[in-house]
Every structure is written in structure tokens, then in C-alpha cells.
């Protein structure tokens, strides 16, 4: 798959080339077999993430004081198992009410913890690319076709442990061995969050670097960027979005 997606120049709109570049790289990664899902399944997860806001069940649950009291069937657009659809839609439409018991319930219904982590990575990375398009008034990019029929690698980093959040993750100083490229020395919890599936971290961090800044720049309070916005201006946007969707991390 070449860089045939995100051709903004063809749409006569000026958008930084590094954004199109990293989106193309991610689309290529999305189209290949992952750690716990096949290429077809990964693309189906992406498609399902796009359907979540049109799901009547999700809307009713979002507006309910007790979402678990609302029963029904998701308006799925794929043949993914119901527990997978449930998780994708929840991450998109009502993520602030995800709890440890909710993740445990997913596991009891057949979605393993590691598969959930990969699912979250795909769902949120595709969503962030889609949100950029929506913010710019652009149509969503067509999803890629599967590029292989390989089985998932089922790789699991041996140093992942529980104790920080709802899922196992690498310790802050655990980016060693095969995971030595993930970060240097120690890092923040949000960087560790999806590290039970190391490729999920590699994928979203690359997109973040183009959309926002690198983890290194965040940690060092870098103020000068090859951007039109200053650090303070970026943080106004970040804080406003985070505040509106109830995230005070």
C-alpha cells in the first residue's frame, strides 16, 4: 500500500505533510495483522468506531444515570462479536464511565485483557484521525483493505504487570529488551497505558507526534516547535477538549 490515502493536495487544502505522512503510515499498520487481531478484524474495529455515535443504544446509555440498566443491541456495522462491538462503542461514546469491573466483565464475556488493549489502541487512533478530518470539515478517509491474511502475533511482553490501572502494563522503568524503543528510562502513566500491546503504543505515539508533540517534548516542557501554535496555545486547545469530555488526568 503506497501513500494513496490522505492526499490533501488533491483536495486543494493546505495541511502539513507530516500529518498526511503519519496518517498513511498508520493506515498501513491498520491494514496488517496485529498482536491479537487479524488485519480484517483491525479494519472492522476501525469501521465500528465510526458507527458508534450513530448507535441508538449508546445514545440511550450515554443519557442514562445508570448505563448498565439500559439493555438492547448495538447498531453494529460489522460482524465482530458483540463483546468487541460493546467495547468499541463504549470507548467512543461513554469512556468516562469505564471502570475496572467493566473491563473485567468484558474479559468474562470473551474479550481478553490484551485484546481489549489492542482494541482501545485501534479505536482511539482511528478516532483521532477521523476527528481531525471532522474538525477541518473534511470527509472521513476511506478505510484500507486488509494487506495480509496472517495470524496475530499474540506477543505479550513478559515484564507487564498489574497494579497501575485496569489492565497490565509495563512498569515505568520497564521499557527494556524488545520494548527498549518505547521510552527512555521512565515515563508517564498515559505512555504506559497500552504497553501490554507494545505496537499499540508505537502506533499512537507516532500519530501524537504529528498531531501534538513528541513525548520527549512534553516531558521537557519544550516551548519552540515547527508549528504555528505556541505551547500555551496548544494547551488551551488541549485543556478545553479534555475539560469538555470530563478528563482531568
Amino acid at each position, binding site marked *: 500500500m503506497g501513500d494513496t490515502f490522505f492526499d490533501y493536495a488533491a483536495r486543494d487544502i*493546505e*495541511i*502539513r505533510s507530516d*500529518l498526511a505522512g503519519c496518517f498513511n503510515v498508520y493506515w498501513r499498520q491498520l491494514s496488517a495483522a496485529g498482536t491479537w487481531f487479524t488485519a480484517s478484524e483491525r479494519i472492522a474495529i476501525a469501521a465500528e468506531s465510526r458507527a458508534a455515535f450513530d448507535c441508538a443504544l449508546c445514545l440511550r446509555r450515554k443519557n442514562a444515570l445508570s448505563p448498565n440498566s439500559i439493555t438492547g443491541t448495538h447498531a453494529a456495522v460489522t460482524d465482530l462479536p458483540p463483546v468487541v462491538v460493546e467495547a468499541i462503542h463504549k*470507548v*467512543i461514546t461513554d*469512556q*468516562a464511565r*469505564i*471502570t*475496572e469491573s467493566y473491563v473485567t466483565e468484558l474479559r468474562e464475556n470473551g474479550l481478553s485483557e490484551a485484546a481489549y*488493549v489492542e482494541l*482501545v489502541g485501534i*479505536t*482511539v487512533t482511528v478516532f483521532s484521525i477521523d*476527528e*481531525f478530518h*471532522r*474538525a*477541518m*470539515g473534511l470527509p472521513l478517509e476511506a478505510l484500507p483493505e486488509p494487506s495480509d491474511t496472517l495470524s496475530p502475533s499474540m506477543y505479550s511482553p513478559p515484564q507487564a504487570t498489574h497494579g497501575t490501572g*485496569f*489492565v497490565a*502494563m509495563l512498569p515505568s522503568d520497564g521499557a527494556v529488551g524488545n520494548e527498549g524503543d518505547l521510552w527512555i528510562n521512565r515515563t*508517564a*502513566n*498515559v505512555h*504506559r*497505558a*497500552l504497553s501490554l500491546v507494545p505496537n499499540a503504543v508505537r502506533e*499512537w505515539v507516532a*500519530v*501524537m507526534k*504529528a*498531531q*501534538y508533540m513528541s513525548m520527549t517534548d512534553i516531558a521537557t*516542557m519544550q*516551548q519552540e516547535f515547527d*508549528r*504555528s*501554535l*505556541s*505551547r*500555551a*496555545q*496548544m*494547551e*488551551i*486547545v*488541549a*485543556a*478545553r*477538549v*479534555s*475539560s*469538555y*469530555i470530563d*478528563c*482531568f*488526568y
Partner: protein
Amino acid sequence: MMLRLSVNHDETSSDMDLITGESRDALKDVPFSAELAAFAESIAKRDEEDVLSIFRKSLAAASSQEVVVDAAAVAANFQRMVRIADSTGIPLDSPQRTFSEKVWNELKLDRMSRAHK
């Protein structure tokens, strides 16, 4: 929290009310702050294109197309970041926790029933 650190670094006065949307005049020293906040809020609220385009054009008129692109990218990025944090239940990092107490109080976040530390 990163906003407070950024404006302090720049020795720019900060008013945390801008974060909660209670003051469009806050952070007057930061160029286009009101237009940036309004555009970001419209994205987060998932306004329809006819509304969102008003804020996009307003920001573009006050600044440039490059600013609009960069602001859209940052907003999109945080739509992802908050979902990673919430989906995995990660707590604040230790140095962040101490600092967050001060910001938490300044923003009066206790009044928001769904807010969690």
C-alpha cells in the same frame, strides 16, 4: 495542568476559567486564545459542520489556515488521549498529583459530579 506550566514558563498571566469555559477573556496575553478555545469546544461538543465551520472560519480570520490545522490536530489528539486514560484507568503520575491538587481547587472541579481524581 500543562497549560498552567506553559503559561508560567512564558511568564504569561493565566486564568484557569478559560479551561472550564467560564471566561472567554481569560489568557488575554495568548494570541487567539478565545478563538482557539471556542473552536476546541465546538469540536469536543461534536457540533454539526454548519456550526463548527463558524468557529473554524472565525479562528482562520483571526489567525491563519496553519493555525486552524494545528489547532484541529491538537484537539483531535486529545480526543484520543482522554480515551486512553479513561479506558485503562490510569491514575495521575506522582509529581502530577501534587500539582493537580492546586489546579483542581482553582478550577473548582469538585462541583462536577463526574470528575474524578
